[in-house]
């Protein structure tokens, strides 16, 4: 079995458009949440959202590539450019090696709705243009990035709701561990337009603390009232240790454990048992004890039921060891399909810079979160091992463990 390391990362999120900006935001506990008044006019119950500016790609991509990229594809492209550069991988290396791509994405609502509107109005499918079909499919990110970067290895999209990005990394880890691939571009992307989150808003799942947007996402806090949708793109370059050493690549961390499970229960209500099994499996896969985990980047999205269930699961598995816990969603909001990948990037930035980012807005614990060791503000700490949780609709769970390579 191969050891699997991370040799590059890139991110484009509401708390920064690159690694440096994001690192600073994480350290300072800076929120990326705003109030989008247009959402209210559009019919949303909550206008709160993470805000991500669309990148200008005119100087970077030709017309053909641009018209096939949906919004979340643009974010993924920018994050992947940064990750490949970070990993020291150039076009020649991509051309000479069989590099794969496994990326999380679970919607392309804007592209679907806009093209359907055109067909309804004009009664002519041709008028959606040539880019539409490539923008509308769930696999849009992998089909576009594999074309742009000329990737020739494994190539497919993972759709697993809010655990998509995490499972993408977990599968990439297995493809490399078992020797099927040497290097895979992994990640997650999330669109953030007003079409994409409307039916999620319909479930009354979003916070309505609109008078104080930056204080509205408050995972684990007693007074939390819902999540805040957000998005962007995050990319990690997974590689076998042998391949990384052979080309003298920077090694940011080693993926040592991947645990997964399905709740086998309600489509949206969380359970404790599902995450417990995912957490336990990741520890077993990593071959470490719970006490060796220094930091847990929680899935906690700021919903009353979800955070309580995760707190119970962490308490059950980590009882007595009390690792530091924070949910970076307190700053970013819920980056959904992207979150499992971006939160590995965030945690790696913490590992690189010896700090744990705060769970901002955590003011008063509830019965379950009181038992966790939650970082209320930035904590200076050397992280050797971190764990990242991601859970999604349908009861899909993913836990990843990354260790500093020594």
């Amino acid at each position: 079995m191969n050891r699997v390391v991370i040799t590059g990362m890139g991110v484009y999120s509401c708390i920064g458009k690159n690694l440096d900006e994001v690192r600073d935001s994480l350290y300072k506990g800076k929120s990326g949440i705003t109030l989008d008044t247009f959402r209210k006019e559009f019919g949303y119950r909550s206008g709160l959202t993470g805000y991500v500016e669309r990148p200008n790609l005119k100087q970077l991509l030709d017309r053909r590539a641009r018209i096939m990229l949906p919004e979340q594809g643009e974010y993924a492209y920018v994050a992947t450019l940064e990750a490949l550069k970070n990993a020291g991988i150039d076009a020649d290396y991509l051309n000479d090696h069989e590099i794969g791509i496994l990326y999380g994405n679970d919607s392309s609502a804007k592209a679907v709705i806009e093209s359907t509107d055109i067909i309804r109005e004009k009664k002519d499918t041709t008028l959606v243009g040539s880019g539409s079909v490539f923008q509308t499919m769930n696999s849009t990110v992998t089909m576009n990035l594999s074309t742009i970067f000329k990737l020739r290895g494994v190539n497919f999209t993972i759709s697993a709701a809010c655990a998509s990005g995490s499972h993408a990394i977990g599968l990439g880890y297995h493809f490399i561990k078992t020797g099927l691939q040497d290097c895979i571009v992994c990640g997650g992307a999330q669109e953030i337009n007003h079409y994409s989150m409307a039916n999620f808003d319909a479930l009354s799942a979003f916070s309505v603390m609109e008078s104080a947007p930056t204080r509205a996402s408050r995972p684990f806090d007693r007074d939390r009232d819902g999540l805040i949708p957000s998005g962007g793109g995050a990319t990690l370059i997974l590689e076998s240790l042998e391949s990384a050493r052979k080309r003298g690549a920077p090694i940011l961390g080693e993926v040592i454990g991947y645990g997964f499970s399905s709740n086998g229960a309600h489509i949206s209500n969380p359970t404790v048992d599902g995450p417990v099994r995912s957490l336990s499996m990741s520890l077993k896969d990593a071959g470490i004890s719970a006490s060796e985990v220094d930091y847990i980047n929680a899935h906690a999205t700021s919903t009353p039921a979800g955070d309580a269930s995760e707190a119970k699961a962490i308490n059950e598995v980590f009882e007595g060891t009390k690792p530091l816990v924070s949910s970076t969603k307190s700053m970013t909001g819920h980056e959904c399909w992207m979150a499992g990948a971006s939160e590995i990037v965030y945690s790696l930035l913490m590992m690189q810079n010896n700090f744990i980012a705060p769970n901002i807005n955590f003011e008063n614990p509830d019965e379950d979160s009181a038992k966790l060791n939650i970082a209320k503000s930035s904590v200076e700490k050397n992280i050797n091992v971190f764990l990242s949780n991601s859970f999604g609709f349908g009861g899909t769970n993913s836990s990843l463990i990354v260790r500093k390579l020594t």
Partner: protein
Amino acid sequence: MKNEEVIEKINEFLVEEFEVEAERIVPEANLKETLELDSLDYIDLVVVIESNFSFKVKPEDFVNIQSFQDFYDYVISRVNSKELV
């Protein structure tokens, strides 16, 4: 609409849509080669023609169009025949 106006409008949207330098669009130049059109690009050409001139184009209409002049002639004939949809 005068023929000159049609040609001016065509050149404007070709520069905008296909990001080609305006000076490369000359009547005798080859449309496909100059604009580097592939099969997908012809779909977008149909879209820009309809949105600018409000008539429908069938992809097979492009079979006999080689040069920009051929393209101008085709659009002008359609505009003049008022086959508006």
